């Protein structure tokens, strides 16, 4: 068993409430979301539909709406909501001392597949 | 706390009576006549049409009415009142929405000693102004009050208006900065009870009862919250404030007193939706024989009940 490593991806204050920012990795981008109640979530940035950038969507409750075709994705599960089917990968994320930490696995995700 | 309870002075309010509508007529439905038997007997044989006499006027106008002299007025029982020594009266109609439930009438007797105040404040241009009030011997305080107005949230009337909740204020005249405190202190006024008045025309009015130490309106005041949104059911009430010359503070943050409908005089107000005024009532707190309980409606439901004991 590996212990969980957390990686600091940036300051919590750098993301507005009901907003998102992108984190680049060698395997593509991750979107980091902050909700109205200051929870953070990390998901693959590409919408399962046409790879729309989820970090550019509108955040409402614990969901984000893709800016390209209005697919609604749950920030908690990564699953498309409603009639649409599909999912994006999610990564454990948390806030500590004003910094956003994401579980290190996100950097190695494609290598692990 | 138990000083000055057993004074031999006569009470500020001598008579409290309740009138109920039956069709288009108000009939007497109980009261506490304080031993003024002749006046009680005449009242039992009197009735009022809407607009007639003091209770009928309160019904017709849809708000409390203060009457400070009976002679030559619309007051119907002037002779009997005069014989009983009664000189002023305040009628408080109790409306549930547009429906009149009852009219509570209190009658007082002027002399040089008895002070206290029963005031009606109504909104005008965004402020509460004094509509009218009965002050007994507190003439200077009456003058001050006529020249005072309250914005929302300020003072006892403004606080009641803003919160739409009865409020019981302590030590009106001492260190606590009741707006009219200086004059109130000189008049010996100590405890103030403010009530939001439900008017069928939707206008805002606040009634205040200001009690003086020497000639108190009552020795015990209680405020009960009966809103379902606060106490969970339409048939119970919780005491949110109260002060008693014998027991001291009645409120409790941790274990508030709770009653159900028809339990004691407060329960009777809650169950019937009508005010009560009883003399020598059973089941009162130790040392008390008389009680007045008044329901405060918000819309068609009772929101609060206030009570005073002597």
């Amino acid at each position: 068993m590996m212990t969980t490593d957390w990686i600091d991806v940036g300051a919590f204050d750098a993301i507005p409430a009901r907003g998102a920012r992108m984190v680049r990795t060698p395997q593509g981008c991750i979107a980091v979301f902050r909700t109205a109640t200051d929870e953070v979530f990390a998901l693959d940035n590409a919408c399962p539909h046409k790879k729309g950038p989820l970090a550019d969507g509108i955040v409402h409750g614990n969901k984000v709406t893709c800016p390209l075709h209005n697919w609604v994705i749950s920030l908690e599960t990564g699953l498309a909501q409603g009639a649409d089917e599909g999912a994006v990968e999610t990564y454990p994320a948390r806030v500590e001392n004003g910094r956003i930490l994401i579980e290190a696995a996100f950097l190695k995700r494609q290598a692990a597949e | 706390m138990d000083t000055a309870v057993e004074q031999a002075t006569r009470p500020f309010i001598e008579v409290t009576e309740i009138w109920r509508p039956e069709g288009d007529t108000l009939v007497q439905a109980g009261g506490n006549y304080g031993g003024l038997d002749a006046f009680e007997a005449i009242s039992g044989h009197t009735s009022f049409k809407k607009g007639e006499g003091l209770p009928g006027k309160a019904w017709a106008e849809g708000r409390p009415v203060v009457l400070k002299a009976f002679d030559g007025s619309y007051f119907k029982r002037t002779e009997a009142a005069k014989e009983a020594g009664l000189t002023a009266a305040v009628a408080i109609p109790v409306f549930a929405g547009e429906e009149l439930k009852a009219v509570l009438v209190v009658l007082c007797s002027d002399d040089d000693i008895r002070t206290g105040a029963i005031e009606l404040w109504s909104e005008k241009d965004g402020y509460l102004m004094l509509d009218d009030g009965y002050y007994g011997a507190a003439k200077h305080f009456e003058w001050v009050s006529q020249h005072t107005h309250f914005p929302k949230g300020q003072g006892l009337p403004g606080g009641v208006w803003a919160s739409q909740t009865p409020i019981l204020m302590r030590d009106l005249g001492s260190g606590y900065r009741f707006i009219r405190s200086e004059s109130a202190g000189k008049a010996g006024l100590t405890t103030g009870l403010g009530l939001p008045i439900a008017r069928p025309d939707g206008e805002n009015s606040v009634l205040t009862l200001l009690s003086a130490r020497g000639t108190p309106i009552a020795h015990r005041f209680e405020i009960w919250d009966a809103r379902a949104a606060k106490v969970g059911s339409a048939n119970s009430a919780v005491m949110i404030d109260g002060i008693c010359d014998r027991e001291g503070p009645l409120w409790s943050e941790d274990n508030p007193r709770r009653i159900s409908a028809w339990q004691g005089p407060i329960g009777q107000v809650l169950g019937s939706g009508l005010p009560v005024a009883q003399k020598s009532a059973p089941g009162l707190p130790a040392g008390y024989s008389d009680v007045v309980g008044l329901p405060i409606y918000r819309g068609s439901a009772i929101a609060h009940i206030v009570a005073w004991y002597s």
Partner: protein
Amino acid sequence: MQKLVVIGAGMASGRMLEHMFEADPQAYEVTLFNAEPRGNYNRIMLSPVLSGEKSYEEIVTHDDAWYADNAVTCRFGERITGIDRDRKVVISEKGETPYDKLVIGTGSAPFIIPCPGHDLPGVVAFRDLEDVDAMKTAAGSDGRAVVIGGGLLGLEAAAALRLQGMEVTVLHLMGHLMERQLDEAAGYLLKKDLEGRGITVLTGASTKAIMGEGRVEKVVLEDGTVIPADIVVMAVGIRPSVALGQAAGLEMGRAIKVDAQMVTSDPDVLAVGECVEFDGNLFGLVAPLYDQARVAAKTLLGEDDVFRMRELSTKLKVTGCDLFSAGDFADGEGREDIVFRDPGRGIYKRLVIEDDVVLGAVFYGDTADSNWYFGLIKDKTDISEMRDTLIFGPAYQGGAQVDPMAAVAALPPDAEICGCNGVCKSTITEAIGAGATDLGSLRATTKASASCGTCTGLVEQLLAVTLGEDFRSKEAGICGCTDLTHEEVRRLIKARELKSQTAVWQELGWKTVDGCHVCRPAINFYLLADWPLEYQDDLQSRFINERKHANIQKDGTFSVMPRMWGGITNPAELRAIADAADKYNVPTVKVTGGQRIDLLGVKSEDLPHIWADLNAAGMVSGHAYSKGLRTVKTCVGTDHCRFGTQDSTGLGIKLEKALWGSWTPHKVKLAVSGCPRNCAEATCKDVGVICVDSGYQIGVAGAAGMDVKETERLADVPTEQEAIDLTIAFVQLYRENAKYLDRPYKWVAKVGLDWVKERVVHDLDNRAALIERFAISQSVYQKDPWAEHAATKTDAYTPLSDFRLEAAE
């Protein structure tokens, strides 16, 4: 008998003594020191004492008789200056007092913001009776108080001072009141309630300095606002008073560390109350202090007990203000909200649920069942069986549906329902009372909804509310968050003066916590269009192209298009565009149908830089991405064309300069043709001007998209100024009335051209008023977003971090 010394006669140590004397009155000979010259009183009831709703005598917990009955030696007003643990004595001004066991209950001290002027006379805290007396002395019927801190204590102080007759302003640093205990919606209702008491509440207010000659005179905020003040109450928080414990060498964290038996690092020294730290936690609310008191009493008596952290609940002691919060109510992974709003009664209830357990609750206006919910939270009760009806409380037995009419029923009688004809709610309900039972008869008697018709839905709802029959509007609601239509929401925003999204969600009974991608952009637009000065535009409620001021392309890159006023450019601008295209590797450069040049395929992080470059060449955003003014297409007009009748290019530039930057329900495109040959294709635009010898023909409501439609003639005017005025008035009328995402031609089809003409052409006062309101809006919104974002918001366009290189190494 063993000697017990207690330092501090507070609520925790007082309760501890009660427990101890109850269990064994003979266990200790007690000496009680208190720096305050009095015994124990119920500190959490200080605010009603301040307001006059309680007297000090009523909140005394232990009077002289109690101390005498329990043989407590009271040394009140005597400050302890040191503890000698080796000799087991406490040291005071009057000498030494020995102990076998010592309990420290020194409590906490208010936190004072160290801003300039914090030590001026007139700055008071709100912690003890001295503070209350100081405030009461300062309070006067004409006094002004500023309360810094919109938490529990600050708000209780504010309400109490208001009741005492002061003018009160609350300054709160965060975005909503009591942010630790309440969510945004409940914070909004609380603010509204306090404002209803005449208290001014400023959120997001940062205190810069307190100023005055010799005593407090005013408070100055970071944004320059100056608030006059006779007293300033600091209620921003507390910090444990631990100097004694620290000097005595006890183990410290942020406060005196205790174990679960309330024993410090010295086995003969206990500590209770706000001066202790247990398991990393500090304490400010009374419930855990009473638990500590119970445990400490047991420990002193040699019995076993353990202190545990428990869930806490909050209530605010302001008469008539009913709120409750408990547990953890932040959103989170796997968590689900249940929201109930009843705007008519000002009720908001929210439960947060995870794995069939209630984690947190926030209630406003209806706290009847708060204890029941608090029990569910504390006991972690499985609620799967009652999930559907949970929000309705323990008594719920089916029934009691949320009333979709609540928002309309809650309207005050003087609320204007029909803006066209100035008809208010009471006029309509009176007409219904007088026998009008359908829309037709109401229109005939009151004229309500007889003009533009956008209030038809509201009038129908009033019929339904008043008559109790089902007049439900046939039109669907905006989205799943509300049953109200766009037109109804617009009308209600105006009639009820709703000036924030939180206000709209609560007062109109939104079914979700914070809307969705369908309603949020619409509400954001309605609010900024109706309240340009009061409402703060919310970027997070905008679609990405408006948030990033560039059109998102299907591959996630963006297009950049500078403005070319009236389609006129010059060599310098063209060079700058070419340089930018080279510098940022722009793959496609296109001439658009709107007479400008589009740079397609720009990466998000390059946007601020390319804008800065284009700004430097004098160009601003063309808003080619926005629901706002796009282009004003022109022909060359009299300057060059032999058929031209007027300066069409000049008018086009003037119109573009006047209108740019304004937000509209949908995009707006204009054109000005210099003669009826119409080279600028003005007859299929939202507003199209055709110049003729006698002046200007103004057409509106054309379309050349999915629908193709020729403009309709609004008016013919002789002068250029009138052409500009009519255009602006038309655009403002459209901004104020149209449904979000309706182009002008759709909106005009709904309200009718005559209705528009009446307001824009015939009623000159109204035309002037429209132009004035447009100018007010432009004073806020006519600014180049490129310059602003390139200067201050570049971060938003770059990744939060980049791990490509690190991982490759």
